[in-house]
């Protein structure tokens, strides 16, 4: 499977009478976008705001971040299973509006979380302080249940991202990247001297607000399976995950999976990147056993020499991570794990809820409990009234002078376990 991914660089978003992409500016007709959002019958209002890098703006509580993309050639459309039909995506041509993002915000639940600061010390921790963001604060109809609200905001965000992405369909990209994964048979003859490597991605799948979707299917219902790495670039994997801002994978992260990108960068040079396995992180222990058995079996069937395994979340998924590691290593396949840490505010506690001697190679996205003070910013998009109870916040975290003292786990994407950031811990 081969995908040409064309990046169109966007340096600004502006509201305008007509939506268009022109000279690196994304012009947005706010009314058209609102109309699209309000097609969701469970949403009664939508406030649109633009947040630019360096502005004194705080966005909270963030639900998801999505990159506008569209299919230019090839089967299917973006976000299959939700916005498009379930055709297999990941081949042909896709255009991506690089440097911008759609951010959905709103308090789905009372402890809804996620802060994006566009400037100041908090901005260093989130990748979304570097993108120009179109923020959608979506208001539910009265009495709406939390899971219906989550679904409505999720789908509205995807539709808006698809709508904006479509504006780039006829624009000439600033850069085109080509990614190709051959069939299993071809992969054996293509680079016979190089180690066979795959990526095992663990998807959050514990229940309400902890969900990931694959072609519209709830990931907790899947059996670990094979997927072409390019499928994710067209939105085949997307986030329904609202909890633990720092280490949840937003849809943007799935679209721009850095492990996929960095394995492709080495493909044919130092390794043979033969494919990707997706697995889940269920609550039921027998599900964990089954899924890790299956993931390791798929690695064996692919005749791999090594894998990178990425986790999503904390606690429960630590058990899946270690099970995957043990069983894959048990097949004689070398593993590197990517995780983050909860070592306590003083950094002295044991970081993970599980451990094993076979986990000899671990990359850390940092200690999520480390405390940060975020200064008051001029403008808040969304609402601050739940900062005290959001994950990692604590009593008094919203001080009278408007500064927030909190653990970095409140910051969207801060300790991402796909290895999206440079941060680590020692």
């Amino acid at each position: 499977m081969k995908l040409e991914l064309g990046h169109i660089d966007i340096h600004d978003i502006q509201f305008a009478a007509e939506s268009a992409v022109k000279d690196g500016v994304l012009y947005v007709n706010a009314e058209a976008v609102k109309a699209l959002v309000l097609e969701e019958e469970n949403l009664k209002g939508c406030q649109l705001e633009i947040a630019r890098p360096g502005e004194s703006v705080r966005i909270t509580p963030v639900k998801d971040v999505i990159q506008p993309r569209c299919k230019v050639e090839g089967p299917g459309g973006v976000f299959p299973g939700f916005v498009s039909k379930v055709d297999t995506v990941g081949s042909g041509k896709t255009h991506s509006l690089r440097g911008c993002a759609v951010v959905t915000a709103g308090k789905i639940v009372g402890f809804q979380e996620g802060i994006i600061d566009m400037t100041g010390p908090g901005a260093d921790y989130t990748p979304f302080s570097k993108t120009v963001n179109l923020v959608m604060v979506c208001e539910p109809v009265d009495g709406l249940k939390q899971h219906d609200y989550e679904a409505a905001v999720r789908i509205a965000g995807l539709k808006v991202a698809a709508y904006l992405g479509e504006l780039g369909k006829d624009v000439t990209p600033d850069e085109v990247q080509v990614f190709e994964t051959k069939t299993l048979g071809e992969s054996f003859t293509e680079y016979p001297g190089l180690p066979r490597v795959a990526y095992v991605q663990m998807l959050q799948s514990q229940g309400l607000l902890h969900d990931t979707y694959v072609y519209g299917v709830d990931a907790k219902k899947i059996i670990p399976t094979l997927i072409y790495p390019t499928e994710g670039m067209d939105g085949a994997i997307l986030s329904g995950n609202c909890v633990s801002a720092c280490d949840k994978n937003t849809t943007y992260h799935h679209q721009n999976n850095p492990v996929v990108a960095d394995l492709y960068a080495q493909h044919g040079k130092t390794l043979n990147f033969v494919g990707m396995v997706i697995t889940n992180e269920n609550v039921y222990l027998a599900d964990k056993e089954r899924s890790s058995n299956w993931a390791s079996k798929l690695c064996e069937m692919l005749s791999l020499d090594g894998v990178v395994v990425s986790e999503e979340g904390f606690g429960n998924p630590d058990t899946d991570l270690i099970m995957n590691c043990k069983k894959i290593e048990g097949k004689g396949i070398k593993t590197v794990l990517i995780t983050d840490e909860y070592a306590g505010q003083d950094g002295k506690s044991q970081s993970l809820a599980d451990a094993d001697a076979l986990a000899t190679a671990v990359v850390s996205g940092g200690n999520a409990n480390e405390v940060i003070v975020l200064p008051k910013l001029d403008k808040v998009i969304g609402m601050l009234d739940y900062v005290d109870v959001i994950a990692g916040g604590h009593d008094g975290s919203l001080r009278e002078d408007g500064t927030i003292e909190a653990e970095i786990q409140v910051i969207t994407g801060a300790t991402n376990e796909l290895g999206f950031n440079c941060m680590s811990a020692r």
Partner: protein
Amino acid sequence: MSKLKVLQYINQFFAQIGGEEMAHIAPELRDGPVGPGLAFNAAWGENAEVVKTIICGDSYFNENLDKAQAEILEMVKSVGPDLFIAGPAFNAGRYGVACATIATKVHEELGIPVLTGMYKENPGADMFKDKIYIVSTRNSAAGMRDAVSKMAPLALKLARGEKIGASIEEGYLPNGIRRNFFDKKRGSARAVDMLLKKLADKEFETEYPMPLFDRVAPNPAVKDITKATIALVTSGGIVPKGNPDHIESSSASKYGEYCIAGVDDLTAETYETAHGGYDPVYANEDPDRVLPVDVMREYEKEGKIGKLYDYFYTTVGNGTAVASAKRFAEEFSQKLRAANVDAVILTST
């Protein structure tokens, strides 16, 4: 900012007094920098200066631990430095233990910022890296320039009470406290690099070493306990009264081997515990509570066991480095095996 006053501790070798033959010398306080102090002064320029140097023989320090520490503490008090630097000790074992011991003492007793440096396998590192900052150096004095380049800036930060970054940034040995920092490459690229090294069987360093406890697979059961020779081994510090081999009350550097042939009961008159860190009253009243010789003799008489082995092995577990404990056990296990001991009962405090 005024120049920070630094006091440095070095051994007889780095003071160019002599090698092992001069290791017995008692602590001495000299004006100005001696040996490595010159390099530190050069690195600090106007920011800080070694104003006095304490020189002490390694044997003197380690063999007269309490006395040496008291003498050195008095010297430190008399100087009243802003910062105390010990070493660097590289791979010199006794020097490393002395540097780390005295630096920890100075920090704990006087509240003065301290820093030392040594090779990661120096026993002093394992014993004290959780207590004070120990800069990781090369394994010989040829690495002095590198050691000074890492220690000098960290020392300034410590003396000024500035925020200390992650171990990898500052150059100190990981001390169990996880700190965030921004690496040059993103995590996914680091993961791919690590995988390539692992695949090529090259050396790589995990970013999060798993906290693992040694799990020892149980041996098969003793076939016939009524015929077995059983030995007693303890980390509870039980020793003949007077502690003839001077096993340290903490961070033990040795173990003892004592004969109990013909001994039916350990009494307050004949045995005691050398162990610090717990209330020793009950152990001293009746040392059998830690090393149950009395019960073993009863079992021996009743035929429940074959024989109690004639010697017991003992050390103090309090703060003793895992590496030291392993070394002790490797030695006395050989002796136990040579004596055809079938099983061992291990007791702690």
